[in-house]
C-alpha cells in the first residue's frame, strides 16, 4: 500500500460522526472485525436481522456468514461455544438478546470462562466478550428490564464493563474485545438511542481499569454507571443551582473495581452518594460503600448513601418508573448528606 493510500485510510478513519450508543457499539464491532480476523460475532438474530436492537446490523453483509453467526436458541450453548472458540484463539463477541436471558449462561461463565486461564495455569485462556442489553425504562415486557450486574461482578476472573455514552461504548467495547480475558459487557438499552455524540472511528480503546470522572466538583461525589449516569448528571446540574458542587464519576468498569479514583474524589469532597438501578441489597453500590467506609472513614463528613432500585422485581411497565432512581431522589439524598455533615 502506498503512502497516499495509507493516509487516505487514516483520513477516513479519523472522520467523526454524531452517532447513538447502539451505533457506537456497531462501529466498534465493525472496527474490531476489520482489525482482527479472529473477532467473530454470534448470538440469536445477530445476522440478517442485525440484532433486535440493530447493534450488529450490516456485519453479516460485511464479514460474511462465518464471522457473524446466528445460533440456535440456546444461551448456555452460546456462552459455552464462545469459551471453546476463545480457547482456540478466536475472539468471540457473543450477544445475549436481553440480560433477562443471561442466567442460563452462568454455569459456563462462572465455572469456565472466568477460570480457564487460572485452571490451566495460563495454558488456555478465554478472550471472549458476552454482550447484553440491560436495564429498564423502555416499556418492555417482563424479564426485559434486569440490572443484575452484581452477579457477574462477584465472580473472580471476569471483567464487567458498562458504557454510558456513545464514545465510551466505542472505546470500552474495543478494549473489551482486545482484552485477553472474558468480559461481560452490559449495554444500558434505555440510552441506546437517547442522544448522539461525535465518535471518531480511530480504533482507540479506553482503559478497563479506571473510572471516568465526568464532572469535577468539591462538595459531594456522585458515583454511578450505565443509564443512571443521565439522571446523575441532571442531578448534578440541579444541585449546582443550590450551590452544591457535585463531582460525577462513571464507574464504567464495574469489575475489577477502581476504588482509587473514587477514594481520591471522596478524600476531596468528604461525601458520597452512589446511584444504581439494580436492587439495593448487594448491588454494586454496597461494595463501593463498604470499601469507602473501611478505607475512607475518616475522610467522610457524612455516611455514604445509596440511591438505588428497590429489593423487589422491577414492576411491569405501568409502574416501572416508580422503581427506578429519579433525579429527585438523587438530589434529595445529596441534600441530606450536605446537611448531615460532621
Amino acid at each position, binding site marked *: 500500500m502506498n503512502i497516499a493510500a495509507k493516509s487516505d485510510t487514516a483520513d477516513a478513519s479519523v472522520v467523526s460522526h454524531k452517532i447513538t450508543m447502539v451505533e457506537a457499539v456497531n462501529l466498534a464491532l465493525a472496527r474490531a472485525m476489520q482489525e482482527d480476523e479472529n473477532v467473530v460475532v454470534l448470538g440469536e438474530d445477530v445476522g440478517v436481522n*442485525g440484532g*433486535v436492537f440493530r447493534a450488529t446490523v450490516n456485519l453479516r453483509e460485511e464479514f460474511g456468514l462465518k464471522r457473524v453467526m446466528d445460533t440456535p436458541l*440456546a444461551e448456555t450453548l452460546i456462552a459455552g461455544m464462545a469459551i471453546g472458540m476463545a480457547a482456540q484463539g478466536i475472539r468471540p463477541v457473543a450477544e445475549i438478546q436481553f440480560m433477562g436471558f443471561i442466567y*442460563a449462561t452462568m454455569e459456563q461463565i462462572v465455572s469456565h470462562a472466568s477460570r480457564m486461564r487460572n485452571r490451566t495455569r495460563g495454558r488456555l485462556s478465554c478472550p471472549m466478550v458476552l454482550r447484553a442489553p440491560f436495564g429498564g425504562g423502555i416499556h418492555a415486557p417482563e424479564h426485559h428490564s434486569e440490572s443484575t450486574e452484581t452477579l457477574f461482578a462477584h465472580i473472580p476472573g471476569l471483567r464487567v464493563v458498562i458504557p454510558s455514552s456513545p464514545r465510551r461504548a466505542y472505546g470500552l467495547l474495543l478494549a473489551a474485545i482486545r482484552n485477553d480475558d472474558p468480559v461481560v459487557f452490559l449495554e444500558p438499552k434505555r440510552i441506546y438511542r437517547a442522544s448522539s455524540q461525535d465518535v471518531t472511528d480511530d480504533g482507540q480503546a479506553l482503559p478497563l481499569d479506571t473510572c471516568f470522572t465526568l464532572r469535577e466538583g468539591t462538595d459531594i461525589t456522585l458515583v454511578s454507571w450505565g443509564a443512571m449516569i443521565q439522571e446523575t448528571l441532571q442531578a448534578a446540574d440541579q444541585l449546582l443551582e443550590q450551590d452544591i458542587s457535585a463531582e460525577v464519576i462513571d464507574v464504567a468498569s464495574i469489575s475489577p473495581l477502581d476504588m482509587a479514583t473514587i477514594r481520591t474524589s471522596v478524600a476531596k469532597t468528604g461525601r458520597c452518594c452512589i446511584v444504581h438501578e439494580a436492587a439495593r441489597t448487594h448491588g454494586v453500590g454496597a461494595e463501593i460503600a463498604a470499601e469507602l467506609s473501611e478505607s475512607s472513614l475518616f475522610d467522610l463528613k457524612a455516611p455514604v448513601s445509596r440511591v438505588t432500585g428497590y429489593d423487589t422485581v422491577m414492576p*411491569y411497565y*405501568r*409502574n416501572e418508573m*416508580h422503581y427506578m432512581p429519579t433525579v429527585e431522589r438523587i438530589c434529595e439524598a445529596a441534600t441530606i448528606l450536605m446537611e448531615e455533615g460532621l
Partner: protein
Amino acid sequence: MMQKTFDFFIPYNRFMNEQGKLEQALPEWSRDQERLIEAYETMVLIRNFDQKVVALQRTGKMGTYPSILGQEAIGVAVGQTMRKDDVLIPYYRDLPAQYLRGVRLVETLLYWGGDERGSQYQHCPEDFPNCVPISTQMCHAAGVATAFKIRGEKRAAVVTCGDGATSKGDFLESLNVAGVWQLPMVIVVNNNQWAISTPRKVQSAGQTIAQKAIGAGIEGIQVDGNDYFAISDAVQHALEKAHAGKGATLIEAISYRLGDHTTADDATRYRSKEDLKAGWEKEPIQRLRHYLLSQNLWSESQEKELQNKSTKIIETAVSDYLNTPPEPPESMFDHLFADMPAPLIEQRIDVKSLAGPGGTQQGSH
C-alpha cells in the same frame, strides 16, 4: 459392519388440505358440530382481537405484543380438548388456548399492557401465566405432571412452545424426564417456522422437530397445525394417553407466523414476500371455513353475526382495560413474599410517600 439396528419413526398427519378438502376420513369426534362451530368462532374472535391489540400498540396504548396471526388452530385445539382440571403451561403465543380455558381478554390486555394483574386469572386458578424466558416453562410442566403423579390424579400438564424453544436445554431435559417418569404431559410445539428472524432450518438439522421425542423415548407426532382436525386429533390422543397414565407425547404442529415476531419486530428485514404469501395460503381459518361451508355447517349470515359479536366482546375488553387504573406503585412489594420482611416494609413506605397522593394516578398505558 453393523450387527443390528434400532428402528424408529415419526408419523405425519393431516385430514384437510389447504383448500379445506378432506384427504382422509375425519375422526369420530368431528361429528360434534358444536365443537367445530366453537372452534371456528373462537379462531375468528381471536384473530380480530389479536389485530386489535396490535392496533392498540401502534397507538401507544399497549406494550410490545406477540401476534398469533395464522396460528389460531393450535391454541383452539388445545383449549377445546383439555379438561378443566388439566393445567395449561403456556408460552406467550397461546391466546386461543388461554381464552378457551377462561383467561379473560381484559387479563390478556393488562398483561401485555404492563400490569401484573393480567396474570391473576380469575377463572383458571391453576394455569400458569405467560412464559417469556424461552423453554423454561417446559420444566414447570414436568413438575406439574409430577405433582399429579405423586397424588395419583388423572390430570395432564399441557405445555406449549415455539420451534426456537426446542433448541434450548430446558426443552430437552423436560422431554427426557417425561420419558423416564412416564409423566402425564402433552408438549405442543407451535412450529411457525421462525424464531424472530431465525428460520426453522437454523434451529435444527432434523427433518422434523417431533423426532426429538425419540431421544427421550416418548411418542412424537408431526401434524399440519393449520388443519384444525389434525391438531385436535393429535392433542386428543395425547391427552387420553396422559389421563390413562401412559406417558407423554410431543406434538409438532406445523404452522406459519403471518405477523411480525412482536410489535417491536419488522419481519420485512429478514423474510421475503413470497415466503409470507405462501404462508397465507396455508392459514387455518379459511380452511375450516371452506370445510364448514361445504358441509352446510356455516353460512354468510352466521359469519356476519359472528363478526358483530366479536366486535362487541373486543370493545368491552378494551374499554375495561383502558379503564383499569394502574396498581398503586407500592404494590410492587405486596406480593413478593407471603409475609413481608421488615426491610421491604421500609422500602414500601418510601415508594408510597414518593408517589404521593397522586402517585397511583401516574401510571399510564
